[in-house]
């Protein structure tokens, strides 16, 4: 049983995320209506549709090239806050994951680098009610599970659970970054749209980043 991931799994992840974004497009926009400017679903869907179109043009050479393509496409198609943030996430993921095949450790390292890119770009902290509140717990859970000797599939499952919990935990928070922060106390009581799309991203990883049965 091969434990390594390559283009098919990476592409599977990205396509699964794109499908999830398309499916939840209106929900993401509705969440953004409550505490933002009603475009998060449209933004992410426009970006991921462009990513899928790029992938349809033929698979990149390796994982690094693939995630670089995803990041660059998001940066140049999305705009808003989520464009640079998700774009940076994938560009850093590409850099840290490298062009060889990925094992479980590479996945954890790459994910952590991606999330650190989001922090560097957006300067948000945990609890600011942003996508980080889904991404950071997911990274932590993944690393902890791998350290405890769990297989990658189970560890990603734990990461997805943590991301979903982190997403839900944004509801009572008062936003301190992004548009939602303008609302002050009125941002309390709404789930953050970026945390919601980030949970979709981690869930897609849990279903798609499963090493092929060799």
């Amino acid at each position, binding site marked *: 049983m091969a434990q390594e991931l390559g283009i098919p799994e990476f592409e599977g992840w990205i396509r699964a995320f794109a499908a999830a974004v398309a499916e939840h497009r209106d929900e993401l926009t509705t969440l953004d209506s409550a505490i933002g*400017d009603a*475009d998060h679903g449209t933004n992410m869907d426009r970006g991921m549709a462009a990513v899928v179109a790029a992938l349809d043009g033929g698979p990149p050479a390796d994982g690094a090239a693939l995630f670089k393509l995803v990041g660059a496409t998001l*940066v*140049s198609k999305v705009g808003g806050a989520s*464009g640079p943030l998700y774009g940076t996430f994938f560009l850093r993921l590409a850099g840290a994951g490298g062009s060889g095949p990925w094992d479980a450790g590479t996945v954890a390292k790459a994910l952590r680098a991606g999330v650190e890119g989001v922090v560097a770009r957006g300067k948000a902290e945990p609890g600011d009610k942003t996508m980080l509140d889904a991404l950071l717990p997911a990274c932590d859970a993944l690393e902890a599970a791998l350290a405890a000797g769990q297989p990658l599939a189970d560890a990603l499952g734990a990461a997805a659970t943590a991301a979903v919990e982190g997403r839900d935990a944004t509801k009572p928070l008062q936003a*301190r970054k992004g548009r939602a922060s*303008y609302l002050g106390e009125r941002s309390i009581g709404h789930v953050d749209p970026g945390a919601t799309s980030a949970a979709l991203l981690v869930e897609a990883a849990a279903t798609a980043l499963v090493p092929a049965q060799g």
Partner: protein
Amino acid sequence: MKKLINAAAEVVPEALRGMAAAHPELRVDVDNRVVVRGDAPVRGKVGLVSGGGSGHEPMHAGFVGPGMLDAACAGEVFTSPVPDQVVAATTAVDGGAGVLHIVKNYTGDVMNFEMAAELVAAESGTEVNAVVVDDDVAVQDSLYTAGRRGVGATVLLEKMAGAAAEQGRPLAGVTEVARTVNARARSMGLALTSCTVPAAGKPTFDLPENEMEVGIGIHGEPGRRRVPVAPAREIAEMLVEPVLGDLDFTGGDGVLAFVNGMGGTPLIELYLMYAEVVGVLEKAGVTVARSLVGSYMTSLEMAGCSVTLVRMDDDLLRLWDAPVRTPALRWGV
């Protein structure tokens, strides 16, 4: 949703096509969504680039032309432009004297302009300064927010910095004018109705017939608080008092007072509001030196208005009065 559009995803390029047809003096790159002054780059002149989400028309493309912006980048509706656009605009207007990016303080705008500046720095020798506009007193400028938003002052800043560039001031001088205007400007806005983002298809928020949102931005976001509808006189107080409370506008060379419509409010109401604003200013001992009344920075079809004050000085007055020739703001030429 009832709008004069074809398809939600095509609103921005199709409107730019209309701008191109109506304003042959501008160069409109519909694919890149960049509008450039026809004679750009102007040799030896500092280039001014601004941009932001669409849905705020005439801002920004309507302010491209001699005496104001050299280029504007149009993002999707209420979504900041992407770095590629800003890079293209910056390159197109680089006349050798550097380029000033005028950025409204929204997380997305700031990050995309930053990434563009990084790309320009990596790719070319163009010197780029950036000024971030943050005049909205509805938002606290604290560590616990993304800082004050950039609203009405943007229009006034683009005009005055544009005049400074047109006069041939160097990048540092133009940047200083922009920073000065921003430092001396404060705004506050209010919505009577929400607006509908075309791709969302329904109003961003519901506002009952007897309520209004105070402290809104320009993206159809809900405001800071919801209050019962009030007469124009009280609305003027609600808007002007927090502005006056944040900065001293008395004395000196008076203020530039700007009553801006949010897109769905007719001009008759804006003039009426302006009369009320002047009333509040008079009581507070603030002298009006110049004024601007109209819908210059909008939130699609939102009904409502904002008030911006800038504390003027001699130099700013001259820059404000200098000729300008753009689709939306024009005088002296």
